[in-house]
């Protein structure tokens, strides 16, 4: 009986391996490549024939002239992705939090009374969270405008830009209002170029 079982097991495993491990992913692959080419390949942002990033993967923006994404435990290098996994009673987390808060207030000329959205003070789960809340984007306008020597009108345009880029909630229910930082920075560059 054991020998027969073993042979049956081998045959079943072989057929399942071919169908589930090869044919099934390939069929999904072809459907994906046919109907959702860009998304299936990583939602890449290509400028002048050159890949400049993915809309789903946050980039490390540190300069004054760009909107900043959330803090990243892996410094935006997703090979592999990772989070701090620090617990709520971790001294390290408290120190990181205080430092981020100080920097954000200081560098963005934020009034100390303002409440800074929590996502800018805590590292994301993936390390490459592409989004920030609309409020967090608005709080960075002052700094970005100053760094780019924007006049009042351009600054006004920046407000509208963030408004127009805000995505979600999906179907009005799922998720909260957020802005994709890469999309925002691309539009920001365009806005600057137009005015030059």
């Amino acid at each position, binding site marked *: 009986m054991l020998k027969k079982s073993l042979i049956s097991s081998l045959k079943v495993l072989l057929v399942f391996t071919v169908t589930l491990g090869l044919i099934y992913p390939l069929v999904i692959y072809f459907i994906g490549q046919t109907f959702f080419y860009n998304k299936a390949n990583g939602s890449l942002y290509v400028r002048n024939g050159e890949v400049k990033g993915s809309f789903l993967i946050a980039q490390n923006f540190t300069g004054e002239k760009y909107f900043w994404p959330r803090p990243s435990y892996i410094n935006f290098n997703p090979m592999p992705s990772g989070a701090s996994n620090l617990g709520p*009673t971790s001294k390290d987390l*408290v120190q990181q939090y205080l430092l981020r808060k100080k920097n954000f207030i200081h560098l963005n000329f934020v009034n100390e009374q303002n409440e800074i959205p929590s996502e800018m003070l805590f590292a994301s789960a993936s390390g490459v969270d592409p989004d920030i809340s609309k409020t967090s984007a608005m709080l960075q306008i002052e700094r970005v405008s100053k760094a780019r020597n924007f006049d009042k009108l351009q600054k006004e345009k920046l407000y509208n830009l963030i408004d127009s880029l805000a995505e979600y909630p999906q179907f009005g229910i799922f998720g909260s209002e957020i802005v994709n930082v890469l999309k925002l920075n691309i539009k920001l560059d365009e806005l600057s170029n137009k005015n030059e």
Partner: protein
Amino acid sequence: MSYITDLIQLIIFVGVLVAFSVPLGNFFAKVFQGERNFLSPVFSKIESAFYSLVRIDSGYQMDWKEYAVQLLIFNLLGFLVLFIIQIVQQSLPLNPQHLPNVNLLLALNTAVSFTTNTNWQSYAGETTLSYFVQMIGMTVQNFLSAATGIAVMITLIKGIATRNGKYLGNFWVDVTRAVLYVLLPLSFLLSIILISQGVVQTFNHSVTETTLEGISQTIPLGPAASQISIKQLGTNGGGFFNTNSAFPFENPTPLSNFLQVLSILLIPASLVFTYGKMLGSKKHAWTIFGVMLSVFLIGVVVSYLSETASNPIFHTNQLMEGKETRFGIFNSVLWSVATTVASNGSVNSMISSMSPVSGLVAMLNIQLGEIIFGGVGSGLYGMFLFIVITVFISGLMVGRTPEYFGKKIEAYEIKFSILAVLLPSIIILVFTAVAVVSNAGLSSLSNKGPHGLSEILYAFTSAGGNNGSAFAGLNTNTNFYNVLMSIAMIIGRYGVIVPILAIAGSLVKKNIAPATTGTLATDNFLFAFLLFGVIIIVGALTFFPVLSIGPLLEHLLMNLKITF
């Protein structure tokens, strides 16, 4: 705070879950009873073609021992294949990153993990496994370990429903139907929707690009969508990427998130109605479902309240460490509860960074035995153990031989039920104890204080309960953890499956006694209440002491603003 929209999301979630699981459950019942269903015209031909291809007589019937042996051999073989392809992946195709062979103990842990439906990951997918191993190894075992769980469940139902019989069905037929009619069609649909949201499905090499600011960044890619859908649906949980469904390529939008968290519970919830349908008592199914839903909702509410309570150390009620902006607090909490009541183990936020009480809820969910919806198949057969114990205790109280669907529950069934309930619990507690008194166990910690104990306890809870989620501060890619956790996963899986099959083998032989006025009804509120009580008492009493010096203590210290 948007309590109202969060509440609406919860209501929609539960509503959709119920709306889909009732018809799906009835459909599954038809499938496993071999009745015609809407997929039959095409799929029954594929099914017969498959049987003739592998030369299996689908009419052949097995008793419980043969069924168990067949299952174990099949799982062992799956394990071996998965183990071998990892340690030689360098020589295999579809490895565009030229990743090296996986080291032996890590490969052992991973192979055990995926064949036991645990999907604990001591490795990071994007930098450890080739596309070949992800597809041929991981994806295949995601299907087959889930199908194994469903097959055991179906066998148990047959054991309960058959009068004076001997045979429980055919393992190959049950597995094949589980894959063909249940797992594959749903995975197919979900994969395509996920790609439409931005989940990748490509064989391209990872992309190295220069960002707007001129920094070089490498982005991992891969055939992820086809694996992620079955990972969610089969309560597997092993991510394609390291941060699982928190990674944007694995879970890009709130909609993909909703569908993925729904997929965790969809099949387990449906199987409750399959159970009721095949046993001929819809009311019993609703009774079980009601108990499951109550415990689930209590978990969600407690976890949510804890997560949105003002944190005394950070003075915020939005602790976003280890969470993604597009999901926010509520969807992170919902996922953490769903993934632990079911034996899924995927995450969309880092449970280690949640509030202590949320961590406790997640841990306790697994420790209860993942019977609240639970793993595909395994959740319901785990719940069956508690039903047996409840029936037995109630029988003792009124002084009658306990019966379940007319079958006498006797010493044999009780012994095996207790064994199956205790084995995973003992493993969790003993292994945790071993780890906290050994250097090898403690040197992997990244958090200090009670949170450190929680990390270790969670790891063994996750392994013993075949969950696979993690308090991921713990580095488990060490020889100590790789080996100990492999043992925990094997005992946690087969230490339950074999007793369940033994019980099915015993029940199938029994006569069905007609219900009398003295029979304890198992389809009313009283029984639901008793069942609820037994689950809480058994689960909580086993684990309360250790939970009190882990997450509970951390909660108290946090409120005193003590950090480590």
